């Protein structure tokens, strides 16, 4: 067992982990931050995307000990300080960017990473950025629309096909 310490959503967090403990397991099972979902556990689906030092990563494919000293952000830290939804989360609600909601934490975290680097992405750029995030409900159109809206762009012309 090894001691691991990191900052999660702005707060210090630490715990005892095995070498094989995944970051997703540490977040969910030890910190009880179950908003980070584990969909496929094979690095495909992106439901487990979190930010590590500002970079989107699949937390099911990173060892917890590799996040030692890192600044980790999860879906639980995304809402505004007063508890209201942030711009991306609100856009997902406004534009029906979710149905069952299982993929949504990963979608929101990927969207946040995209908009940080590329504040006004094109629709194509949004779709390319979401290659590693799988949604089985929506057909993606409204997710793309929500992210475009969250970036402050007019989405009235983006029709659901």
């Amino acid at each position, binding site marked *: 067992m090894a001691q691991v310490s990191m900052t999660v959503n702005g707060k210090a967090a630490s715990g005892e982990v095995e070498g094989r403990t*995944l970051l997703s397991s540490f977040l969910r099972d030890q910190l009880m931050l179950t908003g980070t979902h584990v969909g496929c556990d094979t690095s495909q689906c992106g439901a487990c995307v979190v930010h590590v030092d500002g970079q989107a990563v699949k937390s099911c494919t990173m060892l917890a000990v590799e996040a*030692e000293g890192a600044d980790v952000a999860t879906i639980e830290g995304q809402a505004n300080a007063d508890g209201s939804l942030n711009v991306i989360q609100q856009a997902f609600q406004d534009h029906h960017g979710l149905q069952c909601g299982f993929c949504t934490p990963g979608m929101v975290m990927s969207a946040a990473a995209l908009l940080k680097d590329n504040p006004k992405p094109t629709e194509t750029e949004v779709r390319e950025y979401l290659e590693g995030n799988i949604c089985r409900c929506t057909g993606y159109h409204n997710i793309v629309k929500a992210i475009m809206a969250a970036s402050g762009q007019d989405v009235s012309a983006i029709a659901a096909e």
Partner: protein
Amino acid sequence: MYNFDVVKPTRIADAVKELSDSTESQPLGGGQTLIPTLKQRLASPDKLVSLSGIDEMRGICTGEDGSICVGGATNHATVAAEAGGYPALAATAAHIGDPAVRNRGTIGGSLANNDPSACYPAAALGSGATIKTNTREIAADDYFQGMFATALDEGEIITEVRFPVPEKANYQKFVQPASRFALVGVFVSKYADGVRVAITGASNDGVFRWTEAEAALSSNFSADAIDGLSLSGDDMISDLHGTGEYRAHLCAVMTKRAVAAAA
């Protein structure tokens, strides 16, 4: 996953020592292939030696001869963003996996694994790159030795990969959309002394050079030069995504596209 210890040295020499201390130890790059492999219990090391804390193995620089040097622990996103001195290399890195995978996966990890459908082996072989390890320098032509096989010895670490910058180059990847690996990927580069064509995703022996196409393109660097050339599908990967014959056909198609797009 079976359990293992993880150590995180900060110097190459310490990583080499950690690897030599145990016969069941294994280097950990970004883990984007190794961790899924461990989950499937296809490997059971007792110790992983993480290379992510070794600063001297990260980053991109330009060598005295103009070549682009990429540290072995540099992730794909960094190469995509910072290898502007070799645009075709940056573009290749920008289309590996997905954004989250590119933030973790490393060039050293990809080349050490030598997946037969990975992109970087095509870029390295197609550029005549030099793979630098903790003990020696290996020419790409000698490095790749078949599916998942390389010239690396046990405990040897890729510390840097050096790419001579060609006059023109391009990588064309026919994406297998579920895995985001190349169903077939072709890296074409034009140097003053000739053209190199390296193909990934197709052969049962992993990445290879298509020498007939290289000869034709060296005398006439145009897509037409490929007309009439073909590869046999007999020794090519055949699976539910495509037959060997289909992959052989794609090799020529993607080579033509790469030549046409080379800049």
